[in-house]
């Protein structure tokens, strides 16, 4: 397989974008990535999107987006794996470039979530869970992660305060990210006093509802060396794994086995281990998710994820900074775009473009994107070429 480089990244504005239609949000991010890459020609594109059908009633997305991007005619593919749609789109684009089928591929992710009310969003997001055997009984997504949290707390002694520390850390990181939807800091007390959504999770444990898109342009590393004017970033590891989408079908209710397997694959491909990773973007859709994911990735031992944010291990300046962008929590979580936005953060960090939140000496970063309650997971490792 050919080595693959990321030569351009971009994001749209993220937030409650009342004035912008989904197509424009996507194109805004795609154009930013294309301009960043400085390329004219796109051979093929992938669009990660979870459920535009439910959020805006629009399917057949890839064709529409390629048309509005002014590239009608190119092969364009929509990728869906719930909240891991963006990460998976990136993986498929990488495989297409790596295999030699295409040279320059645009990978984007988009979600327009504010064209439905809160109830519509709850319904749309819950389609990532088992409709007949979970959602039928009144479970919501915060509810499923709350059950993971209760299990983790009962089993490992993880505390309510430790959950709050994840939000505090990620909001602190996000406060340094001009593109974050909620770029302000929160306190442990503020998290603990915020409204309960699904016990023990409170509103400040949850990622927000976001309109937004992100995009990356990738090409063979050899080509990148010739055409790119930016510091080169290459993809050295990629892993993807699935699991039952019903939480109750897992033998371990607070272990994200798909994330663990995807990471093992990516580490093996990159020839590295968890200790070799300088920083990571992980899927903190809820505070408990980051705790379980850093365990699955091997950054901490099983059961010790709760201590990481509290001790500063995963903060900027810590041993392994996690979610320097602010994560889903502060930056926002337009579900289909999230996985690609993680690649944007990794690329900018590796290029040294992250300003106040720059991880010093960042040479190798990891992105972990997750669908549902871990029914799918995609892990990528990017390095300075």
């Amino acid at each position, binding site marked *: 397989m050919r080595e693959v480089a990321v030569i351009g990244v971009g994001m749209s504005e993220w937030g409650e974008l009342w004035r912008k239609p989904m197509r424009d949000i996507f194109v805004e991010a795609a154009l930013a990535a294309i301009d960043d890459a400085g390329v004219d020609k796109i051979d093929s594109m992938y669009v990660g999107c979870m459920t535009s059908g439910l959020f805006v009633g629009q399917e057949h997305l890839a064709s529409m987006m390629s048309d509005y991007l002014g590239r009608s005619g190119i092969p364009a593919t929509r990728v869906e794996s719930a909240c891991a749609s963006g990460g998976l789109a990136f993986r498929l684009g990488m495989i297409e470039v790596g295999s030699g089928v295409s040279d320059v591929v645009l990978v984007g992710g988009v979600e327009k979530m504010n064209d439905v009310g809160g109830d519509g969003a709850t319904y749309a997001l819950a389609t990532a869970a*088992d409709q007949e055997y979970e959602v039928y*009984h009144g479970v919501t997504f915060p509810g499923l992660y709350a059950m993971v949290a209760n299990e983790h707390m009962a089993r490992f002694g993880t505390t309510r305060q430790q959950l709050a520390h994840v939000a505090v850390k990620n909001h602190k990181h996000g406060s340094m990210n001009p593109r974050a939807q909620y770029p302000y800091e929160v306190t442990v007390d503020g998290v603990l006093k915020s409204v309960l*959504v699904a016990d023990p999770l409170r509103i400040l444990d949850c990622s927000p509802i976001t309109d937004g898109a992100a995009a990356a342009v990738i090409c063979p590393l050899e080509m990148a060396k010739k055409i790119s004017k930016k510091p080169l970033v290459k993809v050295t590891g990629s892993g993807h794994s699935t699991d039952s989408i019903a939480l*109750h079908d897992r033998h371990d209710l607070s272990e994200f086995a798909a994330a663990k397997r995807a990471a093992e694959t990516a580490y093996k491909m990159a020839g590295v281990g968890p200790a070799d990773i300088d920083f990571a973007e992980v899927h903190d859709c809820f505070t408990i998710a980051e705790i379980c994911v850093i365990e699955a990735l091997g950054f901490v031992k099983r059961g010790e994820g709760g201590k990481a944010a509290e001790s500063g291990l995963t903060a900027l300046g810590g041993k392994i900074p996690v979610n320097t962008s602010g994560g889903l929590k502060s930056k926002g979580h337009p579900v289909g775009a999230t996985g690609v936005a993680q690649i944007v953060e990794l690329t900018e960090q590796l290029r040294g473009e992250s300003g106040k939140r720059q991880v010093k000496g960042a040479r190798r970063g990891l992105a972990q994107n997750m669908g549902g309650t871990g029914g799918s997971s995609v892990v990528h490792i990017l390095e300075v070429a």
Partner: protein
Amino acid sequence: MFPARYWREMPQRYRLEAGKCKRCGKVCFPPRLVCPKCGNRTFDTVRLADEGVLKTYTVIRVAPSQFTGQSPYAVGIVELDGGVLITTQVVDILLDEIKLGQRVRVEFRRVQEDGSAGIICYGYKCVPAA
């Protein structure tokens, strides 16, 4: 909910019917065509136990529209005797009295309804055992 979708799951929702692998004995709920443990494709129909243990739970305070009248309500994962885990509401108990590991029993309840004119969807919920 369209009636057919509710109707086809009735053996599971009403009677907790599961598939037991004829080769390795793995019990699948709902029934499957392929055993996830051994790959076998033949099953016997069995009924799950109607008691079990609460493994984890939460209290839903922001509920989907069909459930707003019921909120706040508890939803948990129950390991029924025999080892199968199900997601289900836990009712007839004060929310702050629910304890992980407590024994629960399955009861037949209304789970949701399709507005006031649509079908009523029944199924299992758990209540404290004895």
